[in-house]
């Protein structure tokens, strides 16, 4: 499995502990941190909002992103490339646009945009504007996340304020998945307060995404029931 993302000797907030780990294609990991402050600081580091004062946060540079549109299958899924991609690490801060997606605990939707605009915002901001392709991707992932096809139009036309919390979380998850990023960073609290069958479907959808050339990193500051392995710290 090819490597995608790595943290090398990174310290966050006021914590004295340094973290080092590597994520490869297909990895789904839970990263447990000691406190909320440390968790928020780590999210800022792995999403590229902040630069690590100590250590390095890096992502693999490759042809993956440039060929993204050519690799789409009929259901909007990304196809595996057969050739070997050379591994060149680069700083996440310089290369993060569209390659790392983020799912906030409450979905993190922008209140003055409808769900459709929210979902397509990072996709069209980082990549080209193509409505049919976006619709295809959204329908594909929505079906996997457990929303029925006949509810699609109403859901997409709704403002975030009119949605239930689980629907906002679903929209946030959908927004990250349609980007098909190299790394999907998710707040583990997304799965709290959601019905068990939905949680199962969401976890399954994330597993499918990870198996198609991606990695999922769930960050938490408390115990979680997510079925994924914990991050193996190298130090």
């Amino acid at each position, binding site marked *: 499995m090819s490597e995608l993302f790595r943290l090398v000797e990174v310290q966050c907030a006021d914590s004295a502990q340094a973290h080092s780990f590597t994520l490869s294609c297909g990895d789904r990991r839970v990263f447990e941190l000691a406190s909320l402050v440390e968790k928020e600081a780590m*999210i*800022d580091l792995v*999403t*590229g*909002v902040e630069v690590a004062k100590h250590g390095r946060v890096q992502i693999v540079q490759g042809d993956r992103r440039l060929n993204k549109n050519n690799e789409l299958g009929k259901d909007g899924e990304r196809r595996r490339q057969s050739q070997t991609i050379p591994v060149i690490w680069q700083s996440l801060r310089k290369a*993060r*646009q*569209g390659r*790392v*997606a*983020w799912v*906030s605990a409450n979905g*993190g*939707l*922008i*209140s*003055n945009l409808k769900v459709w*605009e929210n979902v*397509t*915002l*990072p996709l*069209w*901001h*980082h990549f080209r*504007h193509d409505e049919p392709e976006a619709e295809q991707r959204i329908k594909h992932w929505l079906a996997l996340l457990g929303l029925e096809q006949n509810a699609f139009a109403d859901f997409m036309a709704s403002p975030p304020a009119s949605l239930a919390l689980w629907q906002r979380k679903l929209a946030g998850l959908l*927004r990250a998945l349609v980007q098909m990023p190299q790394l999907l*960073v998710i707040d583990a609290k997304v799965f709290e307060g959601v019905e068990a069958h939905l949680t199962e479907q969401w976890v399954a959808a994330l597993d499918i995404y990870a198996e198609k050339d991606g990695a999922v990193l769930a960050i938490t500051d408390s115990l979680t029931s997510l079925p994924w392995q914990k991050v193996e710290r190298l130090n």
Partner: protein
Amino acid sequence: MRNPVIRLQNLLGMQGLFVRNGASFIGQVLYTLPAIFKWPVRKALLKQLYFTGIQSAGPVSVMGFLAGMIMVMQVSNLVGRNELLTLQVLIWTVVRELGPLLTAIVIVGRSSSAIASELAAMQVNGEILSLKRMGISPISYLVMPRILAMTITSSVLTFYFQVVAIGTGMIVTAWNMDISLLGEVNHFFEILSFQEIFAAFLKSVCFGTIVSMVSCYYGLSVHRAMTEIPVAASRAVMQSLLAVFACDGFITVLVFS
């Protein structure tokens, strides 16, 4: 030798901090200007043009109509039956001062508080942080379209206000003094100079930029408390008005002294 920007900041005291932050803000906005080619940013720009421009056209029309009519009535009372002087005063006042200033006041009233409170609410709700974590710069997605839209809108609405006010003034003068409207239009083009058009355009562009910058600056300067939202909105309105009048004085001195 110390940095001249820091020296200027120290010289200006508290206002200096605003000037320094404002300068840094302008730099960031200019840096993100190429983002206008991205579809979501273009869409945000169109929304702002509609909100600040199209929706302000009604109040600007009413104000232009009333300003033109009041101006002509007052000048006629003062100078009597002198249509040339009446027209001259109308043009001087409306083109040089009232047009840009009243349009800016309408924009401040309608959009300044709205922008500041919208951005402040987004900041408090964590939406700005969410944008940053998605790799979208709030400056390129939220601030730049607002500044661009308000600058364009301010110059277009100023021109529209001037057309309505001067048109109304001419019609009222022609009606009152029983003279030809076409003759008045001819006089208008003789009286109007390039300097006046340039000053009006410069003022409208500067006012639009200043109002939007000040509104966005105060909107984004809140932290995490809901109580900061109304404070940011009222500060944005007051500081915008002060900045508009200061800029008006500066440009008037620069162009007409």
